[in-house]
């Protein structure tokens, strides 16, 4: 809980720093604040194994919440470190950036620790509203404005679905508390149509939020239009948290009635994989490719919910972590390359291997991880998800997943091919020390987790 308080107070402090023109202090204060929040969360680890719901059953801060909060905080720190010198270029109001990102993070902490539907709603809204602003933060940029508007409309629309679902579930079970709903479902044999409709509507709402097909149309435009760092934040931290929230709701309340929602989710997963991967194949822009690849990864993450079981939380945790750190590398490199060449197409990576061996190496590791090649973290995640669905004997789904993993090779390797095999004269990119640290750390973590997954596996 203290974590949440720290992360909520921190942005207010930052806004004051901005007010008194202490731009230099912003990043250190943010990072220190986040580290404190992280420490406070992790310190509770032992007790959290027996955590009970607090605040009238509104919040349950157990190991699941700590693990996901920690991952969200660490990823946010990495992204903010990349922001050094980035926001200054696009705006004068830097303090606001940090503050809004942290507000969003506060929403995310709520999303991974809620124990009541109202808290889930509040968490999602805090996160989303902040993200709407962040998407449009390049005020004079047409694409950024479009992204914000689209994101806002789609987000509001999906929130409608979500709320309607909540009300219907409340109508039939008489409770917003997860425990109350769980108990009601346990006690009743016959599920009323109202509950089923509610569950499906919640499913639709959450699918919108995590951006899976056929509710994914906002994703590419929003990801492309937003500033790259914000896109990185949206596609890693907020996606991870949304999946954690998704899992908590369905694993606590509705595991017994999986026959209602699981067929729908299987179809959603298959659609997501095919649409995400095949569309990614046709992209010329690296950033847009990452957007579609994030859709397809959402498809793999859905497997953890389709194959709901004891290890689902662990699977989402490992997969999302692996995916997120690899994505941060990709976005970090994208920012550098775009700054140097002014374009975010695949071609702008041409010849990078010769001029910037370090940058090319970390991007290669990231791409291999995203493609799920062994000895990288991405493979461990993919292995766990395959394991889950095979346990449910969803062999057809597994085969679809394999076919998509093969398709994804084409576009991930396109980057590698561009970097190493398309010899082209280019200027050497100066990689700032912050970038060296973040990209090096993320790439190293990818390899270490891939070789020794025990490091993060089995925490929850």
């Amino acid at each position: 809980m203290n974590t949440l308080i720290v992360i909520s107070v921190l942005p207010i402090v930052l806004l004051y720093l901005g007010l008194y023109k202490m731009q230099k202090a912003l990043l250190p204060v943010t990072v220190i604040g986040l580290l404190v929040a992280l420490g406070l969360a992790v310190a509770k680890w032992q007790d959290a194994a027996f955590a009970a719901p607090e605040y009238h059953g509104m919040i349950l801060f157990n190991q699941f919440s700590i693990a996901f909060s920690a991952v969200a905080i660490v990823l946010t720190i990495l992204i903010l470190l990349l922001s050094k010198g980035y926001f200054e270029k696009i705006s004068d109001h830097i303090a606001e950036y940090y503050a809004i990102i942290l507000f969003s993070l506060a929403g995310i902490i709520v999303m991974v620790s809620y124990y009541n539907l109202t808290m889930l709603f509040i968490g999602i809204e805090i996160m989303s509203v902040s993200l709407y602003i962040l998407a449009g933060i390049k005020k004079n940029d047409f694409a950024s404005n479009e992204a914000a508007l689209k994101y806002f409309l789609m987000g509001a629309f999906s929130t409608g679905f979500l709320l309607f679902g909540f009300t219907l579930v409340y109508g039939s079970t008489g409770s917003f508390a997860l425990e109350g709903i769980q108990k009601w479902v346990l006690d009743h044999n016959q599920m009323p149509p109202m509950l089923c409709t509610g569950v499906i509507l919640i499913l639709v709402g959450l699918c919108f939020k995590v951006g899976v097909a056929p509710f994914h149309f906002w994703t590419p435009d929003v990801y492309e239009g937003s500033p790259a760092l914000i896109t990185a934040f949206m596609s890693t931290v907020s996606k991870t948290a949304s999946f954690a929230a998704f899992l908590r709701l369905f694993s606590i309340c509705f595991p017994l009635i999986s026959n209602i929602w699981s067929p729908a989710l299987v179809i959603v997963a298959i659609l997501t994989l095919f649409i995400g991967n095949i569309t990614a194949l046709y992209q010329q822009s690296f950033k847009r490719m990452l957007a579609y690849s994030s859709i397809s990864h959402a498809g793999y993450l859905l497997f953890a919910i389709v194959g709901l079981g004891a290890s689902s939380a662990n699977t989402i945790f490992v997969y999302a972590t692996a995916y997120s750190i690899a994505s941060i590398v990709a976005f970090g490199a994208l920012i550098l390359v775009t700054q140097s060449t002014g374009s975010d197409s695949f071609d702008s990576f041409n010849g990078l291997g010769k001029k910037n061996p370090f940058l090319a190496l970390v991007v290669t590791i990231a791409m291999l991880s995203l493609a799920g090649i062994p000895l990288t973290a991405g493979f461990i995640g993919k292995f766990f998800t395959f394991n889950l669905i095979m346990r449910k004997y969803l062999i057809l789904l597994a085969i679809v997943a394999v076919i998509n993993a093969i398709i994804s090779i084409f576009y991930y390797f396109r980057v590698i091919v561009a970097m190493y095999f398309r010899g082209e004269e280019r200027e050497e990119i100066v990689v700032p020390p912050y970038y060296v640290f973040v990209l090096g750390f993320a790439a190293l973590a990818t390899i270490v987790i891939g070789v020794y997954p025990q490091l993060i596996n089995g925490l929850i």
Partner: protein
Amino acid sequence: MTVSILIFLPVLAALAVLFFKNETAKHAALFFSVVELAIAGVFLANFKPDASTQFIIDTPWIPQFSIYFDAGIDGISMVMVLLTTLLVPLIILTTYKHQYKNANAFYALILFMQAGMLVVFTALDGFLFYVGWEAALIPIYFICSLWGGENRVRITIKFFIYTFAGSLFMLLGIIFLYIQSPNSNYDLHDLYAAVQSQYITNRQGVVFWAFFLAFAIKMPLFPFHTWQPDTYTEAPSAGTMMLSGIMLKMGVYGCIRWLIPITPMAMVTYQHMVIILAVIGIVYASVIAFTQTDGKRLVAYSSIAHVGLIAAGIFAWNAQGLQGSMVQMLSHGINVVGMFFIWDIISSRLGTRDITKLGGIAKVAPKFAIAFLIIVLGTVALPLTNGFVGEFLLLNSVYQYNIWFAVIAGLTIIFGAVYMLRMYKNVMQGQTNELTATFADVHGSEKIVLCIICVLIISLGIYPQFILHISSAAVENLLHTVKIPGKF
């Protein structure tokens, strides 16, 4: 002493080589690979040729999923370890005349690939096996596409997708086995026991296909071979040697160790089909090889034919077949490395691999001619060369299964003799032309490599008992444990 030394030394060596500059990297890589060979020699000296698995390392890796770092060496693995550790220094030595850009990365990748292949050949845990399988694939992808020929990027990605597709299906198969296995783990011997106690009886077909696809693509077996000739042609010769000399044996080894023992019932169902595919592959590849004018491509197709025979011999599943495949895997590895090295020498001197443009080299380069001849004779399985023992045993095995298959598969020897000797005649004999008149004879490192290869070809041909002795107990044991329904 555990097998972990053997596995991790090349990994460390690869990291070390990265820090050397170009020329020194070459020497360092050779040094480390020779050390690795020496260690393999120590293992061989301490190896007891009985059926047991020795030098086992078994530590938890991912306990939640009962994944262990579990590896060891038995007779079958020992031969494969010898093959790998013997060929890698030879292959590194063949590159001594080349000046690769970023040589340190090149040699690091080769050593890393060696580690991956050693994992495959010693793994006793399904997950570990898979990781090794893929860990060997990534380096060769980069070797081929960074240092390969003109069309390398397109062709290498095709190769990668092909093999990656196969291995992903194998991953599904491995997970499927894990879910069905009685102790919920990936342990090979537990799986053997489970299969024999009829625990895993249903859906063996599914597992069979999942594994078969991966192995058939890797070998490659007809009709999964379409990536192979292009990749062999485009890859740098060291890469081609790694691929054909060692990597394709991963598929064969996989069949012996994993596929057939784990799915014996499905194997009975599909045995006939696989052998027919193998025999078709033999004839098909031989005929195509006959029409090739590019030397490297010709060798690539002849490699398909040889592997087809190995596959047929294994799927007949008897002692001769398995023993033959052991000998033949080693021999084929040596011969094919020699063959590709011959073409590497020719093409780096003359800038062409077109057989029709060559001729008369024997006149100007007698030492080269002798080595070439010995390698050709080894490849066409002349008695007293290493190729003969393997092919004889393999044909014997196919004969026991079905006489007509043996007759058709036996054509491989005749066909092989025809296209190989024709190639030799066109390249080496006749009159020299403008191109070949100034061909310099072999010297230095080339001479050493060819010498070693020729000695190996002849000594293994005269005394194959050396290899047969290592693997015979393990092979008998395997045949004994894996009872094929309705056969024994």
